[in-house]
């Protein structure tokens, strides 16, 4: 049994929390008499975070990340569950591969690793993968995505949306009309014109989202839009939700903070897909997350080996690390400016992503009888990001040298501390 003393659930009044057999069994002031006592020191307690969009790179690129190193990074970031994207090598498009990833997550034991299944065989966008087999496997896949690629064929996208209805699943779309982004390197606009880097127009994302919400509405299926990056996308989502379309969406921490100004360095650590956008887009994304048009923050944690990033911009792989700083970025961009309170953070980073992924046991309130998945945060702590100190096997953090608020002091997965005093417990 564990007793966490003097913590503030959702930033509210300080209480003690008793955990027994992985569940919260008592909440109140002045509890006493447990084996393990963790001094909460007045920290904010939140439900364990759930990431809908993590690249763990295993199998295939274990030099960039493994399920274990990625799980450790996740736990340090306050996560208790992460969805592992399907663009591994081999692609997670069969029951065998998703079960392998799921099992590796169980063995690491730091977070629940929930595999995402590919929508199409080999992410090639030609024919559906065996979605039912993945759903029925030990990994219980409910989120299907060709992320990294867009399911661009509208007829195939319609079929995917229809088919996953039988699985209580959701298609998570990487919205990018590929014919509009041939050779694209950064946000298309003033800066791409000057820097001579081929532009990725906002319309290439917005056109696909508009098409997909119409399809999802037509067939009555669940659609999730990955890493929304433009103000126009937020408008389309707002419209679709007002019409009753079952659509959800996520935004990444980096799209909440960084703009295409970062590309001026030509440092590929800032190259990401979709690209960093304009300041006006960033403001619209924050507003969309605040009013719930955007349901979730998802990291799109994308580790890359040094040689894939330390190059000229055009030949570098897109992607950034995100797990360990996600909550800090949300504190800086949403909490400190007053756009979200702690209940709002719990909603966007735990409750709603768990609901989208159909994860029972995660995204639950901090209440008696619930699974003890939670984190303790010191929101006042500020520190400068040092990529060398990250738990990820890769170093491609766009936040290097930035001072960020918020430190995850502890994370508990079903009552077991995976992080204590800011250190991973395995």
């Amino acid at each position, binding site marked *: 049994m564990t007793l966490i003393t003097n913590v503030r659930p959702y930033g509210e009044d300080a209480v003690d929390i008793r955990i027994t057999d992985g569940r919260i069994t008592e909440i109140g002031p002045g509890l006493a008499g447990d084996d393990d006592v963790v001094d909460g020191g007045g920290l904010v307690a939140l439900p364990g975070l759930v990431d809908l969009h993590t690249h763990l790179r295993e199998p295939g690129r274990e030099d960039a990340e493994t399920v274990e190193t990625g799980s450790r990074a996740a736990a340090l970031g306050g996560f208790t569950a992460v969805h592992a994207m399907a663009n591994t090598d081999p692609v997670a498009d069969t029951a065998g591969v998703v079960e392998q990833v799921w099992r590796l997550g169980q063995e690491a034991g730091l977070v629940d690793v929930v595999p995402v299944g590919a929508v199409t065989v080999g992410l090639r966008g030609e024919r559906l993968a065996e979605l039912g087999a993945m759903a029925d496997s030990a990994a219980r896949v409910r989120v299907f995505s060709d992320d990294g690629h867009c399911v661009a064929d509208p007829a195939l996208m319609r079929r995917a949306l229809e088919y996953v209805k039988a699985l209580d699943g959701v298609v998570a779309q990487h919205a990018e009309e590929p014919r509009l982004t041939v050779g694209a390197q950064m946000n298309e606009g003033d800066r791409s014109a000057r820097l001579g880097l081929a532009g990725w127009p906002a319309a290439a994302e917005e056109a696909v989202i508009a098409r997909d919400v119409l399809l999802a509405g037509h067939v009555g299926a669940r659609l999730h839009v990955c890493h929304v990056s433009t103000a126009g996308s937020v408008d389309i989502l707002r419209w679709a939700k007002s019409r009753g379309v079952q659509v959800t969406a996520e935004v990444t921490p980096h799209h909440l903070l960084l703009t295409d100004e970062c590309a001026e360095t*030509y*440092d590929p650590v800032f190259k990401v897909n979709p690209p960093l956008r304009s300041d006006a887009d960033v403001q619209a994304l924050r507003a969309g997350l605040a009013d719930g048009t955007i349901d979730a923050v998802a990291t799109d944690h994308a580790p890359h080996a040094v040689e894939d990033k330390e*190059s000229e911009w*055009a030949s570098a792989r897109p992607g950034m690390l995100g797990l360990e700083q996600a909550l800090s970025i949300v504190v800086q961009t949403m909490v400190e400016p007053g756009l979200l309170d702690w209940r709002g953070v719990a909603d966007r980073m735990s409750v709603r992503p768990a609901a989208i992924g159909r994860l029972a046991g995660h995204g639950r309130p901090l209440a008696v009888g619930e699974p003890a998945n939670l984190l303790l945060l010191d929101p006042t702590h500020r520190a400068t990001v040092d990529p060398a100190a990250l738990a990820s096997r890769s170093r491609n953090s766009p936040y290097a040298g930035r001072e960020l608020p918020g430190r995850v002091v502890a994370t508990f997965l079903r009552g077991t501390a995976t992080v204590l005093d800011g250190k991973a417990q395995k």
Partner: protein
Amino acid sequence: MKRHLLEAGDLDRADATLVLDTAGQIESALAGREVKKLPTLRGRTVVNLFYEDSTRTRISFELAAKRLSADVINFSAKGSSVSKGESLKDTALTLEAMGADGIVVRHGASGAPHRLATWVKGSVVNAGDGTHEHPTQALLDAYTIRQRLGRLDGVRVVVVGDVLHSRVARSNVWLLSTLGAEVTLVAPPTLLPVGVGSWPVAVSYDLDAVLPKADVVMMLRVQAERMNASFFPSAREYSRRYGLDARRMAVLPDHAIVMHPGPMNRGMEIAAEVADSARSTIVDQVGNGVSVRMAVLYLLLGGAPE
């Protein structure tokens, strides 16, 4: 001046003028000499690091460095370890170890010279990167305009053609506006970048409308592959709307000059009779390129060795 010349924006008005003046002095110093060589960079090493074929630019830089008595190493990426996957950074560190004082780099990726500059101690000169910039081309263009027209301030320059993919156009836009010229870009909208509205230039889709007031017409090369990608319907239509032929040349003011960075598609963006006319500065541009590049290398590397 800054340590590197990566883009036209690295030069303020004073620096840009200094380069042009220095090029003029070098030209006078060498005029009439039998041996066209100055001892200025003796003992210095300049590497021409070319990831893209461009014989004329490479030779121009090579000649410039040799006329300043520098040791020159030509490092072509073709057939070297680079084509076997050696990274730009590894190459940079190798050149650094060889003691390169200056690296002249041509690369197909925009921003590659900027990356290089973060890894080496020597000076980096951008000899063309992707669709970004080609600053010494803009300097030689400015030098040529000043030579022909006597000034740059207030000169009306019309740049015609594939601005979207042209590093020459980008460098000229920034350098010429720094030097007080008024630049108008003329192209079909498909060949103008989204965001061009934030540049210090005027934009027109109508070549005939701007020619009567132009002091300089700078034609850009049109790549054949643009046609297949539907940037415009056909070579014929492009040539009819945006090509410079004798009829259009006749509309220009008497003093106006015609420029082209080369190599030209004769009959496409420029008619042969225009390219070979007295208004054409195309041959001057090539010669001035060497003087201007000498000036750049001299100003970047000419200080006493550390």
